[in-house]
């Protein structure tokens, strides 16, 4: 079974081991230790870590298309945001009549902007299963339509990057419009509960953190399974020599579309997990700058290695947390410097550094790592 293949890889086993252990340790330190213990992990920190993990899942999704398929998407923030909005709409509906104006159906922002009924695209979001489905379907559908058009006409390289940017930019402008019915610039906020769990309670926050960790683990395994399959090898072939792959009889555009859609759906899931943890979703998640930043996480961690994307996302965002607290003015210098240094001097990212350091080990393991094991 292709999905179980990654579990037999040592790198995946290690990754999952570390991730699950981290989840367990944080949970333990949060629950079991009293608040004044120096090792106690506060709920604030747990939520912060949860946010990093959702970013990590997003980075994995980007790495899947950029690292393995060679498509530099500068619009993945759009899929992330769409997933987030789907979740946000569900959470808004959960507020029910506890909003400021006490309207049982309409969210507050609709009440004071004089909407008299819910627009059609808000229907169904009071049902969790529908909302969770849309978390995947909305970004998936956008990726399907966009990808179908783009790959069919063989828009590649820079052109593709630029039009993905145009896509997320257009969506940002659209979501900013108050007429769209997504709360305009203010977005969606003031969430109360998720599946009847109070979003303000510590237990829910811990639960969300764990759920995000598990989603990351699943997302990682799915991506790993795709990458390790023959389809993954076709992707890499497409990345390196698209025309050649075509001449071998592969319908490259369909492979690109498939991977692109999977990646968009993963990004949507990441967005959906992100929103309840930070408590707001607004159009700035669509901003092209954010999408470029995601690419940096991947580049820093190491393009084409999924664990690298995870490391990159967590590292950059941790640095952001520290810098914006300690020396706010330096943050953009640090981020900008990172972009330059990583691309110029560290093209393979942190994962590349690790790989270089342990090249010998890997070569040694490769020689007795027969293709039967790898491909079975």
């Amino acid at each position, binding site marked *: 079974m292709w999905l179980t293949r990654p579990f037999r890889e040592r790198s995946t086993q290690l990754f999952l081991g570390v991730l699950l252990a981290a989840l367990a340790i944080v949970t333990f330190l949060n629950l079991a230790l009293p608040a004044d213990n120096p090792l106690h992990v506060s709920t604030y920190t747990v939520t912060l870590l949860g946010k990093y993990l959702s970013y990590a899942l997003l980075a994995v999704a980007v790495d899947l298309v950029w690292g393995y398929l060679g498509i*530099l998407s500068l619009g993945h923030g759009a899929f992330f945001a769409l997933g987030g909005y789907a979740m946000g709409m569900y959470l808004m509906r959960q507020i029910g009549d506890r909003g400021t104006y006490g309207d049982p159906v309409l969210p507050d922002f609709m009440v004071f902007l004089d909407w008299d009924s819910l627009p059609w695209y808000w229907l169904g979001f009071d049902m969790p299963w529908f909302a969770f489905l849309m978390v995947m379907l909305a970004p998936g559908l956008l990726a399907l339509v*966009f990808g179908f*058009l*783009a790959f*069919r*006409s*063989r*828009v*590649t*390289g*820079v*052109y593709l*990057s*630029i*039009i993905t*940017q*145009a*896509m997320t*930019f*257009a969506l940002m*402008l*659209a979501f*900013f*419009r108050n007429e769209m019915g997504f709360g305009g610039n203010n977005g969606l906020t003031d969430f109360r509960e998720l599946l009847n769990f109070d979003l303000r309670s510590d237990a829910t926050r811990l639960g969300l953190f764990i759920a995000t960790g598990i989603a990351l683990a699943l997302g990682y395994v799915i991506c790993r399974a795709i990458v390790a399959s023959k389809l993954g090898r076709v992707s890499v072939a497409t990345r390196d020599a698209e025309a050649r792959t075509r001449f071998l009889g592969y319908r490259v555009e369909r492979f690109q579309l498939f991977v692109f859609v999977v990646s968009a759906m993963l990004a949507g899931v990441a967005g959906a997990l992100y929103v309840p943890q930070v408590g707001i979703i607004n159009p700035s998640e669509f901003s*092209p*700058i954010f999408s*470029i930043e995601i*690419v*940096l996480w991947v*580049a820093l961690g190491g393009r084409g290695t999924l664990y690298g994307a995870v490391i990159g996302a967590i590292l950059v965002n941790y640095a952001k947390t520290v810098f914006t607290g300690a020396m706010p*003015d330096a943050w*953009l*210098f640090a*981020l*900008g*410097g*990172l*972009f*330059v240094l*990583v*691309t*110029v001097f560290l*093209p393979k990212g942190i994962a590349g550094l690790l790989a270089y350091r342990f090249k010998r080990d890997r070569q040694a393991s490769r020689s007795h790592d027969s293709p039967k094991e790898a491909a079975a």
Partner: protein
Amino acid sequence: MRMIRSFVPGLLLLCLLFGLVPVVQAQEDEAAGQALLEALAVSSYEAKSEAIESIITSGDERSRRWLEELLGGKLQRHKETGRFVIVLENRGRNWPVIDALSFEDAGEMSRRDLDRIGINNALRGQLQSALAVLDLYTDDVDDRRDAARELLGSVDAAMVEPLRELVGSEDDAEVRRLLEQGLAIHRLNEGDIDAIAELEGSLNSRVRAALNSATRSDNPLVADAASAALLDIEQKLRINSGLETLYFGLSLGSVLVLAAIGLAITFGVMGVINMAHGELIMLGAYTTWGMQQMLPGQPGLALVLAIPAGFVVSALAGIAIERGVIQFLKGRPLETLLATFGVSLILQQLVRTVISPLNRTVVSPEWMSGSLMINEGLSLTLNRLFVLGFALVVFACLMLVMRRTRLGLEVRAVTQNRAMARAMGIRATRVDIMTFALGSGVAGLAGVALSQLTNVGPNLGQNYIIDSFMVVVFGGVGNLWGTLVAGLSLGVINQVLEPWVGAVLAKIVVLVFIILFIQKRPRGLFPQKGRAAEG
């Protein structure tokens, strides 16, 4: 400071205007002046209005200056001594002043000790028409025309007679026509139906305003006639508004072309995706600001000098970027995107830290303010007209450089076959540097132009970078003509759409259009064909 050219007739007119007997002997007397000004230092605007009238009718030679300074908010009163002064420079805490009675230097005063003689828009209107009447007697035809235009709609009963006389003695036909229209508006307001005939066909907005209010007249005959006249005017205006939209579109397009053309060189010719392009534009704009700081009081000269300076500053920054980053990323276009994005963040923050996070003031020189009047209903804003012209000149120069110079030849050679060009003795590295410097310098020029249209601040570049890329990609990478056509047509499309769907949707529609267009023609409007383009 303008001289008072024809003082006595103006005074006469004004006296008639307010129905007062003129004080014949010109008083130079300190006390009388102080008394006149003292009357202004009251809080009620009605009282101020009366005080202004008495200044006008006083016949004091200084009254014109007083009125102008009052209009400019520079006439102030020292709180303790009650002395009136004119503030020369009102920024900072201590202001240099001159005495309002003798116009002699009075040193510096703290703004804390000064009371401004405040005016409101009603008084401002009163002062402006008073000054306009004075201007009707100047020798300068343009000033007289402006004055006559200013009086449209503000002619009142007292002014009718003197203005009629003036029409008789005026040489300039345009001034006559305007004065007659002014009188006609007055008559129309009085309910005179014949006045409408005189106003027919005028595109002036004040004439239209007068006709519009006439359509609400109690007299149905007047109302109908006014509606008919308006209908005729509206028809003429429709052509105007079409032309206006085209101008708006070309103007927006020229901004896009300017912002994108440097990118067309670095991106199209060198294959470098320079995300710091916007910041190079920003540097050009800041150079303009710096020039104006260095040459205070001469914004025009500073702007002209900023053109070469902006080019050089951005070109140098470009060279630094090329040497520092891009040369290590040959043949990896997507990675130049990431690295230069980092550079753009650094440059932005640098400007914030070194200069200020706040926007800077860039002054428009006199000759770039206002608009060029094509007819009464259509005028082209001068700053945008200049930018449009500037964009075309820059484009033409670039075409010349690429087509007719050694550099252009070498650039094209290196673009087409790097190895071969090297073998023929072209120093490819040098060509890279020069090309990048050229593209960056052009970005600097764009910045100089944009400083006349929008904010000069750290975010300036970000607002243009995405649009620039869209233009280049839409036009076809590596084709300067494509960039020109793409920029101008996107500008026109945007402006044509805007009145229909609003600014935001227009922009979204344009973006979606570009996305779909790229699907149809993946290599833009004017693609490079053949094997070279595949690489």
